[in-house]
């Protein structure tokens, strides 16, 4: 519950910032107004897209977009938007990749040069050095959160409360469950589903609902999901598989193979999608 509350406050803050930017639009020249609309659009889009999961946090360096907008805002009307120069500290506070940090520092320098035309020399040097100190403090703030990338990330579940795990977890689970199933005399198989990119998350949610609580679901990449199905015999497994596939979206390509046949020692993430198995196309 508390986390939902945090999301809501962040969303309210994004909307308030959009409103504040909208108030600048009257009396501004056309160029500045266009950039202001773009920035408002970005804030609103972020507020809409925001959710409480790891779905979007991997991959794209989205921090580049707001920093381009910030450069744009300051360039469009350096005199009125000069105050926004301090917002670069906010950009540097975000946890980001190293090259994005360098990009942001360059952006800050460019916008500082634009403002420099209105200031005298010593004031400019003072501004530059204060921004440097603030930037250093901002980078320290960001550093505290950087551990989200790295090893913790590979064991995190992707959506809170859902039995959905990153693909690296499957590699670990395969080794563990092989010995376990052998010892307990259970038939286990890995079921890999290839779906359309836009169907991935709804399908993953559905798969989590349809499988037992002790059967994990894994996201292998942008279009592939996997799950470990446990049953007492191969025939029971086949029955369960067909039941599961009946509820999956059309055009799902599925593969399955017995857990015993996998050689875990040599397996890596990309290989897992290309394992030699009998394919079937689900067209129901």
């Amino acid at each position, binding site marked *: 519950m508390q986390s939902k509350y945090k999301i809501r406050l962040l969303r309210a803050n994004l909307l308030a910032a959009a409103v504040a930017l909208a108030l600048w639009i009257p009396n501004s020249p056309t160029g500045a107004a266009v950039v202001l609309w773009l920035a408002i659009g970005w804030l609103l889009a972020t507020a809409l897209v925001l959710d409480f999961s790891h779905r979007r946090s991997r991959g794209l360096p989205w921090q580049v977009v707001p920093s381009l907008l910030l450069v744009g805002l300051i360039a469009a009307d350096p005199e009125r938007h000069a105050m926004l120069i301090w*917002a670069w500290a906010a950009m540097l506070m975000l946890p980001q990749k190293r090259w994005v940090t360098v990009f942001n520092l360059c952006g800050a320098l460019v916008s500082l040069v634009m*403002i420099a035309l209105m200031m005298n020399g010593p004031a400019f040097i003072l501004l530059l050095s204060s921004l440097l100190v603030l930037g250093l403090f901002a980078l320290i703030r960001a550093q505290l959160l950087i551990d989200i990338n790295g090893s913790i990330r590979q064991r995190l579940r992707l959506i809170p409360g859902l039995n959905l795990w990153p693909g690296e977890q499957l590699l670990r689970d395969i080794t563990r469950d092989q010995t376990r199933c052998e010892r307990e005399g259970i038939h286990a198989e890995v079921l890999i589903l290839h779906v359309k990119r836009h169907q991935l998350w709804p399908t993953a949610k559905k798969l989590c609902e349809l499988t037992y609580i002790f059967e994990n679901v894994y996201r292998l990449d942008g279009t592939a999901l996997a799950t470990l199905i446990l049953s007492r015999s191969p025939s029971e497994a086949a029955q369960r598989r067909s039941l599961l596939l009946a509820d999956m979206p059309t055009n799902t390509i599925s593969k399955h193979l017995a857990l015993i046949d996998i050689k875990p020692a040599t397996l890596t993430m990309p290989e897992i999608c290309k394992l030699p198995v009998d394919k079937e196309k689900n067209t129901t």
Partner: protein
Amino acid sequence: MTENRTPKRLMTLAYGVSIALMASYAMWLYAMGEYRDLLIPSFTTLLLIAALLMHIGQGLGAELPRIILLCCTYAVVLGAFYYNPGVPPIWLGLPITAAFLLLPLWAAVLVNLAMGPVWWLFPAIASAPPTVLLGYVTLTLLLALPRWEHARRRALLRATDPNDSDCSAYHIDTLKERLNSEYQRAAMLNQPLAVLVLHLPQLDMAQEQFGPRAQSALLAALCNEVNSRCRDHDVLGRADNATFWLVLPDTSESGALLVRERLQRVLSQCVLVETGQLEVRITACMPYRAENFERYLKRLEARGSALANA
């Protein structure tokens, strides 16, 4: 440990650079012959040196030097606006930004709200165009955004990381979930299930007498020994501050008692620097036939508190 050291060093550097900046500002004022304005920057330079020493010295909270730095920033900017009406309003942004960087989010928002009307008492700002007011509001809102994002990521990390924050055992939510899934699995595949309840009686004492390092050493010793002696699919989780559950799938009661004996023997051979011999109380707890999961959880919790009071 190493992750904590880098920000500490960087922080020292940041304090050092701020002192240099403040001192050169004071010297510049001196060179320009503005002796009246000189008072505040030279006094804050001394304060900042004190803050740096506080930061380097251990045992003091990290908050105090930050608050001193923020107060100095405010004092210098207020002083500049007070003595020179000609200072451009862009400098208004410096204390706002410093507040968001140095204080917790709520404190920063409150400080900026409270200081808002104060700034407009100064002629330098009161005579400025209304866009400055808009700039103040917008900047405050924009600077709050990354802090919210931090809060969101931290909450997300807590909600999705299966491990406890102090040791390599599952935390209570994941533990209950894994226990539930093992319970369902055992029921479906008709297998026995056993849980060992482990209690560390020395843990609270270690925290009080020797501090957090002794406590984490105890926790690490327990987790390492248990994780290295057990099968890959046995689940170790922290049920309570000093109580752990070890879930043993496909294990009968006699098997669980064997594991208990083995762990008891191995753990009692563990000797730590501050707390001495590792002391552990272990008991086994099996689900009854057709017992519902909630009842079983209650029974496990009761078993844990009985061990703590034994």
